[in-house]
């Protein structure tokens, strides 16, 4: 899939990156991104990122996991293999609570990690990396490259304290 080229402005200070990101958003640049070795607090709002869908997915599966867990136990004791223990009810719901809970958590846990992997498009191999320093100490603001506005974007990054600006076509 061909991607839109991007302009990368390197910053030294996370604070400067945040300020520049905030200005860029206000100036109307879309699809902003950044590269950083740790999650800078509040950068998602600064860059105008949409709320992540991961927690909602996990919570949905939490409920489904609980339903599946309870239903399975009920099925086993009413249909699968009825055991009459001293005339006690077959659907002994209080006794089903621990496994219902564990089942919910099990579903939600797997859903969370799988969702994160899907949302961040992680895969075991076949990646291209722009700069190996992004997992060490380098920070960069990403603004999508536009032919007619390129001059303007580069000037904007320079004015806001970027010490190096590069264009990346393939990433």
């Amino acid at each position: 899939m061909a991607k839109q080229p991007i302009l990368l402005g390197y910053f030294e200070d996370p604070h400067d990156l945040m300020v520049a990101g905030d200005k860029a958003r206000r100036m109307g640049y879309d699809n902003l991104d950044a590269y950083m070795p740790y999650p800078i607090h509040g950068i998602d709002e600064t860059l105008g990122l949409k709320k992540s869908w991961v927690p909602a997915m996990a919570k949905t599966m939490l409920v489904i996991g609980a339903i599946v867990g309870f239903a399975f136990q009920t099925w086993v004791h009413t249909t699968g293999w009825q055991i009459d223990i001293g005339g006690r009810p077959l659907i002994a719901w209080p006794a089903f609570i621990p496994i219902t809970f564990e089942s919910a958590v099990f579903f939600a846990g797997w859903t969370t990690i799988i969702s994160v992997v899907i949302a961040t498009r992680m895969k075991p191999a076949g990646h291209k990396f722009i700069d190996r320093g992004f997992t060490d100490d380098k920070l960069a603001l990403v603004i999508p490259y536009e032919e007619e506005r390129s001059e303007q974007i580069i000037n904007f990054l320079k004015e806001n304290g970027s010490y190096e600006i590069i264009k990346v076509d393939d990433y």
Partner: protein
Amino acid sequence: MAHHGHVEKFPEDVYVDDQGREQFVSPDLSMTDVTDKIVAPLEGKIGIGWWAGLLISLGMLSMLAFSLVTQLINGYGQTGINNPVGWGVYITDFVFWVGIGHAGTLISAILFIFRQKWRNSINRSAEAMTIYAVMCAGLFPLIHTGRIWVDFWLVPYPNARELWVNFRSPLLWDVFAVSTYFTVSTLFWYQGLIPDLATLRDRAKTKIRRFIYGYLSLGWRGSARDWHHYEAGYAQFAWIAAPLVLSVHSIVSFDFAVSLIPGWHTTIFPPYFVAGAIFSGFAMVQTLLIITRWALKLEDFITLNHIELMNKVILLTSSMVGYAYIMEFFMAWFSQEQYESFVFFQTRFQGPYAWAFWTMVFCNIVSPLPLWFKSIRRNLLISWIISIFINIGMWFERFNITVTSLHRDFLPSAWDYYVPTLYEWLTTIGSFGLFFTLFFIFLRVFPVVSIAEMKAILPSPLGNRPKKYKTAKTEAEEAQ
């Protein structure tokens, strides 16, 4: 401890930022320093100490292999289990190891929810301990069933005889609780590792290292969008792991509390077990981290403040456990229930297992008392010794609960005394071998402290900035 006289970077002066908030990393460190220091033990030469530790651990692990093989040949007769004491050292070990695991999840999930920054430097190693401890724990019920080769019957699966497991049994709840706990802790831990594995990938000098870490880090790039989903997922994990950790030891306590044995059948068990689990878990974290921080030179990240804060948690949970002990005796007296009173006032205080009871009381209640003093909480040697006492005491607590309630059956003619055999001790020592072997391998393979999370709490990511960040000491000097 050789490092006792070591000069500490943070003796008394606690770093605070310009808004007066305490900092848990030295402001002298830049982001690159953090990466270099944490990765150093993984990239440098292997010290002789590491080899020695690994070899000793492997030696202990071989005892486990030996006792497991002999049990396959001899059967359950090689243990000291008798009638009425059907639960012995294996169940004690099981509860002990599950408990050890609890500190890791408490640190990684519950302290995360409470936004405790000091968790960032200890969560990785504590979570690793959780996973290894749960592996050790899981081993024991499987051995305890006696017929290891049919342990898969514990899992509900469609079979030709159309049999299903009994979901109304607390022992089955355990199967689900422990396996879910293991799975979710491992996933949570792995997610936390991904950015650090990417750091290792990007630093890798050999092709094979780059391939392995590259594969494991799933091509992590560290873009803001990736972090955005990552953080949401991490917080989600914390919110499901927090109730999970409370549920696991509650369910373990149900193994006892749901039965009708005097001394077991009490409603105090779930909170009492959870407090005990956190208590023993923190003691184990303390035991390992005091040595690890010295051996791997991690004093910049695991500071004396961390040791002190962990000691405070130990002190609090010690008090909770002590309260539970007293409450058990109070209820035995208050209920005027003759069997309950007999267990507590005849068999625990005095009886043939009184030595186990008093060992437990001394180790869990008396030995942590010096921690009320700040100077002791910040003393590495004494903290370490106390943590060892607690490890021993918490093992005896489980032994005490399991064995003393059983050895005096309802009919005096059935009374008996249980002595663990050599094979049971070999299995126990062997489980420590498994735990330490895994821990030593962990020290060489994964970053012991979370690199990305340390960067997130750096007072000044660019390195030393004396103007902005002051120590309490310099502030006091300025005020004069």
